[in-house]
């Protein structure tokens, strides 16, 4: 891994996206910053993985088969162990109404694709209290 950050603030991040390319790019960027990553390919898979292992941050797409991102946010927020875990929506959607829906569901932030890797790491550090 290129220049991986040795980190005492290493976090376990769950990435949820039906696009393999996005999952791989997220994984690459997050691992480069020293974080550990679990990947899920849709909301349902994401929910199952979040239940099987407590993660420090969830980054999810909105539009996915089986379960969309906002439904996943609602499902996670209904669980006591995920009440305060940051959840970022990373999506092509940029409409205000959809953002409001995400905010109301309990998302921590909204990132429009494509993501800037440096900015993403800054956001991850900020929402997880990593720096």
């Amino acid at each position, binding site marked *: *891994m*290129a*220049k991986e950050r040795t980190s005492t603030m290493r976090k376990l991040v769950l990435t949820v*996206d039906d*696009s*393999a*390319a*996005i999952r*791989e*790019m997220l994984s*690459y*960027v997050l691992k*480069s910053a020293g974080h550990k990553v679990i990947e899920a390919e849709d909301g349902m898979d994401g929910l199952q993985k979040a239940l099987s292992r407590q993660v420090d941050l969830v980054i999810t797409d909105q*539009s996915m088969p089986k379960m969309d991102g906002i439904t996943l946010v609602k499902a996670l927020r209904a669980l006591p162990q995920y009440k305060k875990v940051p959840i970022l929506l990373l999506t*092509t*959607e*940029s409409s205000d109404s959809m*953002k409001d829906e*995400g*905010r109301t569901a309990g*998302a*921590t*932030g*909204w*990132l*429009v*694709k*494509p*993501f*800037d*890797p*440096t*900015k993403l790491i800054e*956001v991850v550090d*900020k*929402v997880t209290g990593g720096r």
Partner: protein
Amino acid sequence: MTRQQSPAAESAASVSSHDLGRLVGRAGAALNLQCRAAHQELAQTQLLLADATRKLLDSFHAANHALAGLGVQVEDAATRVGQNLLAASQHLQFSDLVGQLLATTEQRVDRLLLVSQRLQELIQAMDTPRTDAQASGDAHVAGEKRAFLEAVAALESCGDSRVKQRDTRAGNVELF
């Protein structure tokens, strides 16, 4: 056409209606053919895109793996290559955006194809000469008409693609 028309006028109207039916049928067949071709081209584009993306990702990871093995002697070079790979990770996301656009177009073409098929079926049903089984023929036409209107409604419900991006510049970030 009304029942008050003369037999000659009725015959002319009937011929013209038949011709119109044939013309619309021909247009429908052409539309059908082109929609099928467009559908195949889109599916082929998806395959090419997926293959190219897969190979780009493999090369990307291989370069990253090789970079990790270079050691401390070439740390500066490794840092620069690492920065380039990081920048490339933003632009490789084109695959997701293009994939979503193609999927929307594919759905649109599928629905166009369905309208074209239903139109042809409706015209065939309307062109079928009436016999003593007229009532059953009318029911058949009504059924085809209903199917055609459903296909049109499905086509009309195709909305705009969610993807508005025109390049791979980074999107906005908003923390709530």
